[in-house]
């Protein structure tokens, strides 16, 4: 072979990426390819579906007056909620991380916990005690209260890690505290704010349950109705593609905004924790504000659940059906978590260990479901199975695959960081000590990434267990999960019967929300005394 790698024609690069001297592990390539194919499958079949209906039909569907209304509904809700979440999230994070607020650790937990209450449960909480709540304002309020932690969390993290030196420099250059915050601090936390806003936007575009409860029609609600009531796969597919386009637009907007604001990052070691602002007489109003926020976001839904639980327990609860629902939920979620984690391993392994254009593309593809609402993934799988594999339609396997696709990005987050820390040098040493590649993987790599695999499993499990939209579309007929049973009772307005199911889902997802906030807390503590 020639040593003159640089004289090879440029077109040969791609093939060399696959067949290069450092051979790619076949298992990983196959695994990652399957993952990418699965991720692309729903979207591909939606496009196929839309195409087969013909362009005039697509035009007719898109140019309906109702589509314009839906678009307006979706956009104005998204803009209002995202802006409100940004303001609330940044303000709350600043108060907790940068002021002398009393009981800061408690607040750090309380402000994150609403993340553990599924949005449709928040909607349920409010509407069940005040049936008059409906429409735009109700939707904005409920979604803001559920989603602001998505901004709070990254911003609090960024503020805790902020380099105080920059703010001090700004002050010494004559800026007032407020100016320094505006021109320096905000600038530094901008990527965190934008990242949080992106998550809020994507969640809003994907949300179905909460909007259905407050009777506010967004794209997702309309698609769901179109499919479930009208069984119009074509219309649902076409509208889904519009939804995907909106998500992609949000991603693009975040990317371009973040790209413009250069990320200022302090070098390691040079960082000092910032001094906290003394609240003084402002303590009381700030405390009152945070208490109001937590009360509305956490107190009302939980209080309402408790109320209905107590009320409902007077009527006898069918314990057996709850147990069955728990069993099915656990079974599907666990299977999905195993599948998603198993797919995340080869994807991140290739992207980290054998970085080239092909493997990076594979990894990006694996993150695509972040922009795919659960409804879109479910509809894509329906479109596929109805046409090509009817046996799969509404089978447990289809639901598990849908969860795995939907939450693959979460699994990747867990696995990737662990994989990044498991140095390939250690594997090489293992080889030089006489172990074969497979043995090295079991004895070195696996123990090192095990915590990451555990985190990935837990994240996917919890998200699957509290997923509503895709579950409603795909769950096997006659088999109920916590989410579907909750939904069935809620739509019948049997709030007392629905409450235990909601409570169980909250219990499941409160755990990671609490752990997240705790991690933030330890971070803040580590930064504190320096």
């Amino acid at each position, binding site marked *: *072979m*020639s*040593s*003159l*790698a*640089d004289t090879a024609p440029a077109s040969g690069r791609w093939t060399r990426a696959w067949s290069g*001297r*450092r051979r790619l592990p076949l298992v990983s390539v196959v695994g990652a390819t399957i993952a990418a194919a699965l991720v692309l499958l729903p979207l591909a079949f939606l496009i196929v579906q839309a195409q087969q209906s013909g362009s005039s039909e697509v035009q007719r569907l898109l140019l309906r007056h109702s589509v314009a209304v839906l678009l307006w509904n979706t956009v104005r809700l998204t803009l209002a909620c995202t802006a409100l979440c940004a303001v609330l999230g940044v303000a709350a994070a600043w108060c907790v991380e940068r002021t002398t607020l009393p009981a800061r650790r408690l607040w750090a937990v309380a402000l994150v916990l609403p993340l553990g209450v599924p949005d449709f449960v928040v909607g349920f909480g409010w509407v069940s005690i005040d049936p008059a709540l409906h429409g735009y304002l109700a939707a904005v309020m409920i979604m803001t209260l559920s989603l602001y932690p998505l901004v709070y969390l990254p911003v609090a993290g960024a503020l805790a890690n902020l380099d105080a030196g920059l703010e001090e420099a700004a002050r010494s250059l004559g800026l007032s505290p407020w100016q320094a915050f505006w021109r320096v601090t905000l600038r530094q936390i901008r990527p965190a704010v934008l990242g949080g806003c992106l998550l809020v936007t994507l969640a809003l575009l994907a949300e179905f349950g909460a909007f259905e409860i407050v009777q506010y029609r967004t794209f997702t609600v309309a698609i769901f109705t179109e499919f479930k009531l009208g069984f119009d796969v074509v219309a649902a597919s076409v509208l889904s593609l519009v939804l995907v386009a909106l998500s992609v637009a949000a991603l693009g907007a975040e990317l371009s905004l973040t790209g413009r604001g250069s990320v200022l990052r302090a070098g390691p070691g040079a960082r000092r924790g910032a001094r906290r602002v003394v609240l003084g007489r402002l303590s009381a109003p700030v405390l009152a504000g945070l208490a109001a926020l937590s009360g509305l976001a956490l107190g009302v839904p939980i209080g309402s659940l408790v109320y209905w639980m107590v009320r409902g327990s007077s009527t006898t609860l069918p314990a057996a059906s709850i147990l069955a629902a728990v069993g099915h939920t656990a079974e599907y979620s666990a299977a999905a978590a195993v599948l998603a984690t198993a797919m995340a391993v080869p994807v991140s392994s290739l992207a980290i260990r054998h970085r080239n254009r092909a493997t990076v593309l594979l990894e990006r593809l694996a993150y695509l479901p972040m922009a795919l609402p659960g409804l879109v993934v479910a509809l894509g799988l329906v479109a596929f199975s109805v046409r090509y594999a009817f046996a799969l339609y509404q089978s447990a396997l289809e639901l598990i695959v849908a969860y795995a696709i939907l939450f693959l990005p979460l699994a990747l987050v867990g696995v990737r960081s662990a994989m990044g820390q498991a*140095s390939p*040098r*250690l594997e*090489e*040493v*293992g*080889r*030089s*000590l*006489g*172990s*074969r*590649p497979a043995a090295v993987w079991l*004895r*070195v790599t696996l*123990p*090192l990434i095990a915590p990451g695999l555990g985190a990935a499993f837990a994240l996917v499990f919890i998200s699957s267990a509290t997923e509503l939209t895709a579950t409603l579309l795909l769950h096997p007929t006659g088999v109920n999960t916590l989410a579907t049973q909750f939904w069935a009772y809620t739509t019948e307005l049997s709030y007392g019967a629905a409450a235990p199911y909601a409570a169980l889902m909250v219990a499941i997802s409160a755990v990671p929300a609490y752990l997240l906030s705790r991690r933030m807390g330890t971070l803040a503590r580590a930064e504190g005394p320096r």
Partner: protein
Amino acid sequence: MSSLAVSELWKGYAGTRVLQGVNLEVPTGSLTAVLGLSGCGKTTLLRVIAGFERAERGAITLGGRTLEDGHSYLPPEKRNVGYVSQDGALFPHLSVEQNIGFGLARRERRGTAVSELLEMVGIGHLAERLPHELSGGEQQRVALARALARRPQALLLDEPFSSLDATLRARVREEVHTLLREQGVTTVLVTHDQEEALSLADTVAVLRDGTIIQQGTPAELYEQPADERLARFLGAVNLLDAQFERDTALTALGPLELRGARPEHGGAAGVVMVRPEQLDVRVRGDGAEDAETGARIAGRVEHCRYYGHDALLRIRPEQTGVEPALLARVHGEQALPAGTRVSVGAHGHATPLG
């Protein structure tokens, strides 16, 4: 026997050529240092020998076995070559004991082999510890014991001492050297530290721009470097203009016997190298003994750098037309203040430099 031989080894990454026909011979049981600046390809060379990377061309044999050539390639686990990296690369999830036993068969792990290795590197009391509970020096000892556990035919050390602080480095270096001597392991040590290479190795190979430009004993390299760049890399030098006359170089410091061959182009004039420790420096009084011999140069100390065990003087000759400045290494107690008037002579051999 189990000597390690590398011939015509080529290796590059994405358009840059790192190794360009490396030839290296490591005699059985010897310690060979590969010396080079960072980025010269030292680590790549070791990684190819270990089998972590595949060469593009060339062959590696170890004790008659072919590890790699144009047709075949033996994976790292079949080479029986030990490898110790810069940071030790201990498995963070395994204890010291488990790290050392990693390469042993299950049966051997239970026996006394591991505890013997622990004693051998002097860390018997640390068996149960996890890597992060060890100091840098201890980690390197574990890494060494782990690599030696399988009685490798050759041992590769990739700058194993560079992550240690100066005092510890000297000690660990000494211990490792003694240990390797006792074990008689064929060893390749890669380093950018010329002092380390000269003091530890039986032979030193200098890697530059992807090829070995010279291989020899430390003394050969120091006294007869292949070129001026290498001469300066291995230590301070004085370059003197010389007239060649048979085996003698006539220099401003008098006639000096030539070491090695005269440059082939054979001209009557050239440049010779004299190391600073070959110069002897005497303080000049005001007396007449100054002018006693023609073989000495009169000068003034321009600068003195004091190292404790010795000192390096920069001496500016008073006479113009001689060298711009001479470097002389003298005893620490002879560290003369700047401005001192001295006379300089030379002894030993002069090495012609092409």
